[in-house]
């Protein structure tokens, strides 16, 4: 089967996914985007409302200066071009969660244009208001077929920054890892709680497939509102698979908006392009254009903390971490903060050694953050120090770490309680090595003859006799001494 995309005949039959993300970030301002209501955080329904965010007749919006400030900070962090004049537009459509019948958003003059984060180009960042929350009574859980639906306007009018990427991601994993970098960046900026479960960070993915090597885009689908990193990766994987199968069967992709159900992994259509809205965008006449002054830019620049890219660079240049560790701790700021705390707890520690133990710990925690585990930074620092001073060996330290992860406590106490001190030094270890050699006369002869292959078995025997507390290198040294090998 030859694949055609437009006029261009494609060289490869291998398909690659092309993924762009649209991320909605609830900004952590004191008040809503266009009124003075405090933001809602789980209060009783409709207690954080006023005529403006309820869309009552006669009410008018006033733009939130703090939200614009946060938007500028985001733009600076993403290296965007910042508008000198930015306008709000009305996006018109009917839905019960949209009390005015339009959403105030931005259209042709967004606050931030272009930019880059990691390896991904940013298309734009604009400000808008969040919709209210609908709760449908009845089996369907959707508005169609609901016995009744109630609207909670507490969320309505919460400031949102919408961040749109160019379609430069090529896999679900890449999308997930880039989104973590974005989340870290936003969290570092302090502009949002960026909590996916609570909806303060929401992600839609535009997904299409094309033959590798093609520079054209295939028909895309939009996967809506996935609310965890795991769901995003699973959702994208499932949609890529669905499109691959359709194309494999010789069918075409329909441009539509899709919903991913993480429980069943099912993908269902929300609406197709034929039903797509004509949003009738026009400049919001109730809001004058926002003029971005030098003073506003100065305030935003001043408020910028160290961002992941700079942190990564600093870890490499000043802390001498490996590139891999530096990126891990910079992109996952919580883990980086934990690493910083470990180093601070014992300034004599070799940073890369500390980094390795932080990585070792994180590997045992799954989705849990190191900071929330039973292993305090001070405990991990102590553990690393016990290894670097040869009080315990690697294997013993890993046993201690297992114990700390499940029970917590002091590493030194665990070592003492379980008798995990390394067996070291000629006095203690030499008789054990001698015993091991004596127990394996054939192998000893081969070793004496210069064939070092059986050394592993001897070390294993010594480990068995010391319950793993010996150091392999030291055992080898003693074997050579006792057999008179140079």
């Amino acid at each position: 089967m030859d694949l055609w995309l437009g006029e261009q005949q494609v060289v490869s039959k291998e398909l690659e996914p092309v993924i762009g993300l649209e991320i909605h970030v609830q900004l952590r301002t004191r008040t809503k985007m266009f009124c003075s209501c405090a933001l809602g955080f789980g209060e009783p329904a409709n207690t954080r409302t006023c005529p403006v965010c309820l869309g009552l007749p006669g009410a008018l919006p006033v733009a939130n200066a703090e939200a614009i400030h946060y938007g500028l900070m985001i733009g600076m962090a993403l290296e965007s071009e910042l508008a000198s004049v930015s306008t709000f537009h009305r996006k018109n459509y009917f839905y019960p969660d949209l009390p005015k019948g339009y959403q105030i958003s931005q259209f042709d003059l967004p606050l931030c244009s272009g930019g880059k984060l990691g390896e991904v180009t940013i298309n734009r960042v604009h400000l808008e208001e969040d919709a209210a929350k609908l709760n449908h009574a009845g089996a369907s859980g959707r508005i169609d077929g609901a016995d009744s639906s109630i609207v909670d306007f507490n969320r309505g009018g919460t400031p949102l920054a919408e961040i749109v990427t160019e379609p430069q991601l090529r896999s679900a994993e890449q999308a997930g890892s880039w989104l973590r970098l974005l989340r870290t960046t936003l969290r570092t900026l302090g502009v949002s709680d960026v909590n996916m479960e609570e909806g303060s960070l929401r992600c839609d993915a535009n997904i299409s497939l094309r033959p590798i090597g093609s520079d054209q885009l295939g028909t895309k689908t939009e996967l809506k509102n996935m609310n965890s990193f795991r769901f995003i990766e699973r959702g994208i994987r499932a949609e890529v698979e669905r499109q691959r199968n359709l194309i494999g069967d010789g069918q075409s992709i329909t441009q539509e908006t899709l919903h991913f159900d993480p429980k069943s992994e099912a993908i269902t259509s929300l609406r197709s392009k034929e039903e797509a809205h004509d949003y009738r965008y026009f400049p919001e006449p109730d809001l004058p254009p926002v003029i971005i002054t030098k003073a506003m830019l100065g305030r935003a620049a001043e408020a910028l903390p160290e961002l992941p890219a700079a942190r990564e660079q600093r870890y490499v240049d000043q802390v001498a971490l490996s590139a891999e560790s530096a990126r891990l701790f910079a992109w996952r700021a919580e883990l980086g903060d934990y690493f910083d705390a470990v180093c601070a707890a014992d300034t004599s520690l070799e940073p890369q050694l500390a980094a390795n133990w932080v990585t070792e710990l994180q590997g045992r925690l799954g989705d849990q953050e190191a900071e929330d585990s039973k292993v305090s930074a001070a405990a991990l620092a102590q553990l690393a120090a016990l290894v670097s001073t040869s009080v315990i060996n690697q294997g013993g330290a890993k046993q201690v770490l297992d114990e700390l992860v499940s029970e917590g406590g002091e590493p030194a106490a665990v070592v003492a309680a379980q008798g995990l001190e390394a067996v070291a030094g000629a006095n203690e270890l030499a008789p054990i090595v001698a015993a091991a050699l004596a127990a394996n006369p054939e192998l000893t002869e081969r070793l004496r003859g210069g064939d070092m292959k059986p050394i592993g078995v001897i070390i294993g025997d010594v480990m068995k006799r010391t319950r793993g507390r010996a150091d392999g290198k030291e055992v080898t040294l003693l074997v050579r001494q006792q057999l008179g090998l140079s």
Partner: protein
Amino acid sequence: MNDAIQALSAAAAAAAIADGGLARDELFEHYRARAAADQLNAFTWVADQPAAPVDGPLGGVPLAVKDLFCTEAVPSQAGSRILEGYCPPYTATAVTNLEQAGAALLGKTNQDEFAMGSSNENSAYGPVLNPWDRSRVPGGSSGGSAAAVAAGLAPWALGTDTGGSIRQPAALCGIVGLKPTYGAVSRYGMIAFASSLDSAGPLTRDVTDAALFYSQLVGRDSADATSVGFPEPIELPSSERLDGVTLAVPTALVDGEGVEVGVRESFEASLETARQLGATITSCEIPSARFALSAYYVIAPAEASSNLARFDGVRYGFRAEEKSLDAMYTETRHDGFGAEVKRRILIGTYALSSGYYDAYYGRAQRVRTVVARELAEIFREADFIVTPTSPTVAFALGERTADPLAMYFSDLFTIPMSLAGTPAISIPSGLSNGLPVGLQICGPAFSENKILSAARALEQAIGFDGSVAWGATSG
């Protein structure tokens, strides 16, 4: 009727209350009784008693308020069925400003639905009758406010002007109406028609009342991002002359088709009066004026189509009970809106549609810029532009309801100023066949003090007597 009280202008009544010669309650009861006996359908709601008295420059003078202003716990339906029974939880800033200056809410007045109309025939409450001739319209959309003041049912009234909705009914009812500079008066709590054009202003018996009222109405409101502080206090006018003042007449427009002979005669008599007061009359051109009406009837419906989207039956007002969401939306809006409102929603929706935006809305906005530039150009040479307010006197009820374009033509002289956002006043210039004719005086942005001053001088010289219409509801 207590003739002595009735004869007092609002400013005179406020002064009488301030010096103890008149009791607040007596004044309120005088107008409350007259408003309650309204036979013009001017009022949609009348207060039982005055709110707690507030001392201030407006001194307890009763105030009629156009229905579309939100007034807390008082019906505010903007003349529409879709807001049936709606009582807002808050009060519009314009009304609050007046109340804090001492005005006492007397009642709410009838209007064209959502201020869309020039005859007050598009109201869910039914048409308002003109007190000068009950077979005729009072003009619109602030027809109830104008008729109430002209008939002496209220000392003064708050109205709104989007394309002429204060000036034209003031002209047709023989009273004074001031459309402010856009942004000078807060729109917060005004049920919106066309956001970039809507302005709240006074309808009064005379120019001095208009100035007193307006002095308490203006002010920057932090709840309205498009509002601006007025650069100077509004003064009560005292001028009797127009020496050194230049009035520019857009000759081609005024001499154009459709302007009634009686209107033109009254207008020319006003020009002659102005000359006698020392004014210089010149001629000017507003070349874009012939596109202004079309541009207005694209921009205003476009904004309205979006502003009226919130009336969906979900949260307040009228709701058609239907099984599905789409059917509920459709039937609510089908039954809740009147024909003219639906016509404008359709026009506006079309004008904003993808693929048509540039040809309609974009182009209309460019016309708007040109109109504003041409007016500014004229104001470099002249102090004011003067025209008749309306091409005709009050027309018969039902005469234009079948012909929307003829109805839209009523706004010919008032729309350029609405598009430019500049202030304009209409004062009575005389009668034509027993019906009032209005003179429009327009100046550059924030020239209200000068406009009021010139209008006061002309008013004194013209000596129009509106009290003829007071008897209309007494029998």
